[in-house]
């Protein structure tokens, strides 16, 4: 019997605003604990939360990037539960009237394009942060409420995902989109992107769903993939041995590479939602929606297709270059400064990306787009060889100088003088009689060796093509 997993993801992204969703406290990360709170986010009596317009706009923009319908009518509800980092004992969220509904993102899985449906996107406030004391003598937790009230968009996918790899690709896509539209930093370490997984197993082709298990405590995209792979195996084995899967929440243990069950709480999910009477409903007219739409930039998929059409790049190259907005901008600037698109793309992908930790920060990279275009120009007009260019590039990163200056200073100009190359070749032929003999006896490999020796003689500066031609002439 063949089984298939049915997976849906719930992704929380922190919306990139200066202030919290319902009050004017700062959202800055890493401040002194409990220094960014006020009566509103602390839930003190008699306060009035007011929606941050920017959080609403970013949520709508996120929905647009996910091809969602923007709701004309939406409202906020109270989700009631007790937890120490939730000072009001309810979270303001959206229950039945979210800001965005429907939509999809396209991912690439097994070299095929696949659409993953989006169920909804809603706005809500974050809770605080608890740190549990490790001291067994002190049964306490430390609570920091700076994060309480930070705006989140929760993006719920349809159960369209079928593997850990697809989930990974989906998350990459969500992250790429959210960063493109500058709605979120999507930094998992700082908690600005979080993901929970819902997963069940069913007979392949069945239309009904199996009992679903929720996995939490996933702190990287890789953890999501590993936890899904582990859970698919665990659930399939359980079913094969005739066991039943029970609805439960499991946590991922990254050290042991396995999930484990949390003690179940029967009525943990009775949230008794009701409309928040303190917050007016959001009723959007098309003027407002159009205004937000104007801020929607070219998204990665469109950009990729344009790169393929406009610059004649392979699908793969276009995909890599457009996955990060800043990188795509850098590439386009290099081309704008006169570089050949394919040459620019090759250099960025095989040389530059290996030398930069975070391609999003490419604007701070010592080699600007203009400088890279300058380097590529020197290769193109045969001033330097590709091999020397790599050295020049390293030097550019180290010193911040442009390619021309470095070539000039270090005397790296390619030797294209026939007589000069000829005399180097003569020396090499004289010093390597054995290889010359081998070549004449038909060992073609010997030619490569001799070319190498000439290049060495020239300290890499001879034009390799000319060396090759003159050498062959001289040997015959």
């Amino acid at each position, binding site marked *: 019997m063949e089984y298939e997993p049915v997976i849906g993801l719930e992704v929380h992204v922190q919306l990139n605003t200066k202030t919290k969703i319902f009050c004017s406290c700062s959202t800055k990360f890493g401040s002194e604990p409990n220094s960014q709170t006020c009566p509103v986010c602390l839930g003190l009596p008699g306060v009035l939360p007011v929606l941050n*317009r920017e959080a609403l706009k970013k949520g709508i923009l996120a929905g647009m990037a996910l091809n969602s319908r923007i709701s004309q009518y939406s409202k906020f509800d109270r989700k009631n539960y007790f937890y120490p980092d939730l000072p009001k004992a309810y979270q303001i969220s959206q229950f039945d*009237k979210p800001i965005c509904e429907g939509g999809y993102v396209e991912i690439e899985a097994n070299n095929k394009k696949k659409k993953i449906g989006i169920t909804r996107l809603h706005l809500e406030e974050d809770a605080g942060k608890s740190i549990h004391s490790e001291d067994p003598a002190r049964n306490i937790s430390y609570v920091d409420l700076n994060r309480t009230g930070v705006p989140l968009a929760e993006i719920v996918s349809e159960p369209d995902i079928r593997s850990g790899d697809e989930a990974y690709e989906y998350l990459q896509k969500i992250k790429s989109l959210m960063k493109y539209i500058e709605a979120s930093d999507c930094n998992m370490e700082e908690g600005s992107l979080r993901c929970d997984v819902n997963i069940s197993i069913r007979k392949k082709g069945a239309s009904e769903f199996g009992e679903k298990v929720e996995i939490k405590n996933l702190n990287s995209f890789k953890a999501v993939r590993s936890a899904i792979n582990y859970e698919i195996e665990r659930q399939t084995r359980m079913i094969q041995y005739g066991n039943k899967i029970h609805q439960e929440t499991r946590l991922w243990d990254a050290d042991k590479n396995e999930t484990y069950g949390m003690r179940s709480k029967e009525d943990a999910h009775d949230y008794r939602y009701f409309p928040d009477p303190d917050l007016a409903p959001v009723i959007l007219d098309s003027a407002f929606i159009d205004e937000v739409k104007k801020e929607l930039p070219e998204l990665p998929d469109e950009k990729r297709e344009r790169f393929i059409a406009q610059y004649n790049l392979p699908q793969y190259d276009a995909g890599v270059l457009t996955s990060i907005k800043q990188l795509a901008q850098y590439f386009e600037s290099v081309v704008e400064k006169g570089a050949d698109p394919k040459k620019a793309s090759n250099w960025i992908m095989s040389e530059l990306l290996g030398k930069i930790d975070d391609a999003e920060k490419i604007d701070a990279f010592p080699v600007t787009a203009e400088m890279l275009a300058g380097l590529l120009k020197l290769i193109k007009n045969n001033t330097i060889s590709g091999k020397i260019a790599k050295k020049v590039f390293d030097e550019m990163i180290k010193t911040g100088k442009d390619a021309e200056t470095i070539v000039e200073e270090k005397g790296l100009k390619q030797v294209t003088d026939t007589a000069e190359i000829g005399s180097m070749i003569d020396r090499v032929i004289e010093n390597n009689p054995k290889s010359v003999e081998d070549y004449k006896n038909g060992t073609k490999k010997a030619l490569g060796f001799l070319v190498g020796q000439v290049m060495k003689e020239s300290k890499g500066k001879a034009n390799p093509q000319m060396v090759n031609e003159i050498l062959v002439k001289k040997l015959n």
Partner: protein
Amino acid sequence: MGIDRDTILKVSKLARLELKDEEIAEFSGQLSDILSYVEKINELDTDTVKPSDHIVDLKNVFRDDETGPSIKPEEIEKMAPQFEGGHIIVPKIIEGS
């Protein structure tokens, strides 16, 4: 509409309230009375009244994304039963354990 003992137990558990037996009986009576009082509204003919999703007759109340003053941790310290190193101290609660 009557509120039975089980419902009272469930609601009190969700609200983290510990009720004595006589309170269960007392509240079950009170809550039943409240519900029947509110039920009266069903006697009204609302066919011509537009359904309302919300109790306030307002819409789109927004604020600008501009930082305002927060309160000092010392102020929170005064409100919290226990406070240490800038943190509010609570009994350790780990979800699900």
